């Protein structure tokens, strides 16, 4: 299996899907030059400017036009650059894309993938660092995906492109350069809604997604040396989330820790924790950012981070 970065894996996923289906196209700012993070590198050369479409700085239009383009049968990949800028296009996503199929009684289908890179990325400050995945899990009609590895970024992106409903696809800005083995082949998709066990264990179930999966894995390695065995589950898809897999694990370990980079208050960790508490009555705990905007200065920015030490400490307390 070749080693690819998270960005390359996504690029290959798009190229494969665009070759397979002439209705797939991508649009957003600066895509022709390969995208801000190189995640579209070379695609304009292969597919031309109509299918790798440079747009004006018009997030509402990028999103809204994609709704219309999807309704007539094309499959747009919508690049929002930073999830923060997608806040300029919320009506188009939430009131239009997510609801069209339902409002029109099933007449409309809106197959679009909305790429919204999330997360803290050194000194990007309050308007370029948010992780708002929880918002979209709350909106009926949306699928929400947050891949943590290069292999998943290929397989899940392919599934998202093939999905007939709108998928909010949240890559992490700090993962673009992460390298890992990625299976080759056109049909190596990964199903939406299926979690992945990052590391099997017996003592505490640690549920996470996106970049925090790597942090949890590091914490788990430390803990294992201490004789504590955490099971780390990468949710991968937040809606629909793999409730069965999580329940099965917590039923075994007897305790749950949910870890995410987003603000803890109102984060998706609350949903996972509340569901486990309701269904199993097991002890639950969440780790997420404090309810503060992300600051610019590194030492201040770091206050918004969940670290492997914090995770290890929480697991130790629970185990």
């Amino acid at each position, binding site marked *: 299996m070749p080693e690819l970065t998270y960005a390359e894996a996504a690029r290959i996923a798009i190229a494969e899907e665009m070759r397979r289906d*002439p*209705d797939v*196209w991508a649009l957003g700012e600066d895509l022709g030059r390969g995208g801000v993070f190189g995640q579209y590198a070379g695609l304009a050369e292969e597919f031309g400017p*109509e*299918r790798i479409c440079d*747009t*004006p700085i*018009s997030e*509402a*239009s990028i*999103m*809204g*036009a*994609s*709704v*219309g*383009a*999807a*309704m*007539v*049968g*094309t499959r*747009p990949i919508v690049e929002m650059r930073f999830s923060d800028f997608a806040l300029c296009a919320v*009506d*188009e996503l939430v*009131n*239009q894309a997510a609801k*069209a*199929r*339902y*409002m*029109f*009684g*099933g*007449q*409309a289908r809106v197959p679009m993938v909305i790429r919204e890179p999330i997360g803290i990325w050194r000194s990007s400050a309050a308007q370029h660092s948010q992780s708002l995945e929880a918002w979209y899990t709350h909106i*009926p*009609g*949306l*699928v929400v995906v947050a891949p943590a590895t290069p292999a998943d970024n290929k397989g899940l992106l392919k599934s998202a492109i093939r*999905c*007939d*409903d709108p998928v909010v696809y949240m890559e992490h800005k700090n993962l673009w350069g992460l390298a890992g083995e990625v299976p080759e082949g056109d049909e190596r998709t990964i199903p*939406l*809604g299926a979690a992945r066990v990052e590391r099997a264990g017996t003592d505490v179930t640690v549920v996470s997604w996106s970049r925090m999966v790597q942090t949890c894995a590091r914490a788990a390695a430390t803990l294992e040396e201490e004789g504590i065995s955490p099971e780390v589950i990468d949710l991968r898809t937040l*809606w*629909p989330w793999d*409730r069965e897999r999580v329940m099965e694990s917590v039923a075994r370990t007897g305790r749950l820790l949910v870890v995410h980079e987003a603000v803890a208050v109102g984060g998706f960790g609350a949903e996972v924790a509340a569901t486990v508490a309701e269904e199993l009555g097991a002890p639950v705990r969440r780790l997420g950012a404090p309810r503060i905007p992300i600051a610019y200065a590194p030492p201040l920015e770091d206050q918004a981070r969940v670290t492997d030490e914090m995770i290890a400490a929480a697991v130790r307390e629970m185990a």
Partner: protein
Amino acid sequence: MTAGRNLDTDRFFAHYATMQRIRAFERAAIRAAREGLATGAIHASIGQEAVAAGVCGNLVRSDLLLSNHRGHGHTLAKGADAGAMMRELFGREGGVCGGKGGSMHIADFGVGMLGANGVVGANILIAAGAAHGVHMRRSRSADDRVVVCIFGDGAVNRGPFLEGLNWAAVYRLPVLFVCEDNGFAATTRTEALTAGPGPKARAESLGLVAAEVDGNDIVAVDALARDFIAAARAGEPRFIHAKTWRLEGHTAADKGAYREAAEVEARWADDPVARCEALLEQAGVESRRLAGARDAAVREMEAVFDEARAADWPAVERAFEDVLDTTAARNAAD
């Protein structure tokens, strides 16, 4: 109005019939709202029928249409079934959206009507995108559909107006935008809150060829729409500012206390349906035929009203369908 003997009476009789059907549908819809049968808000288009008929009468079935919250007339003119529409307003089984959308989300994809919209201005971007999709597919097949987007004078003050028109012009998309200016945004006169020379100048500043028209003059609307639709079909986006007037309240519940009875009465003298009728009479169409079209429209809409009232409610399970494929099972569990 450019009338006279050489009027294409067949064409305008058809427009006239459409306008009478819209008028009758709207009257029935208002009655349904007042009787509590149409359970949601009803925004009727009485007084604005010439825009719907004149614009949509120049489209073919496969062409696409996006409308706003005041969309019954546009939808009927695009060819949707009045019965399915009325059942939708009543929230009944067999409604064109299965009872899930109601008046503000009326849509009939089968005739290319891709939806009314409850958010002012939102249809502009969706229309630009539908045209973008059609445009993309043209390279692969002989898709010559055009997209028409109708919105109100209130929508010209929302950001999507700028973004959507710029978008259409940049990509040279097959789309016609129609600003149906009825003088009001809800209870407010739009003029006072719209700076500058008006929608036409705004559209031109965004690179579109644009024109103003008397929206109550079916002949003028028809002629301009025909031209502009042909241009749009060829990838030259166009803009029409059609001036009309909202003869009834903003919704069926609105008595319109913010305008004088005298003003409303004066505006009734410019009723586009009556104007079209006069024109056809002048052109030699028998009054009996005209009255016949009107009566037929009224009877049709009374019938669909009665049918809708008699229709069943949708089965409650429908509430859980059409959300997501991937999570059908899970959704039900929540």
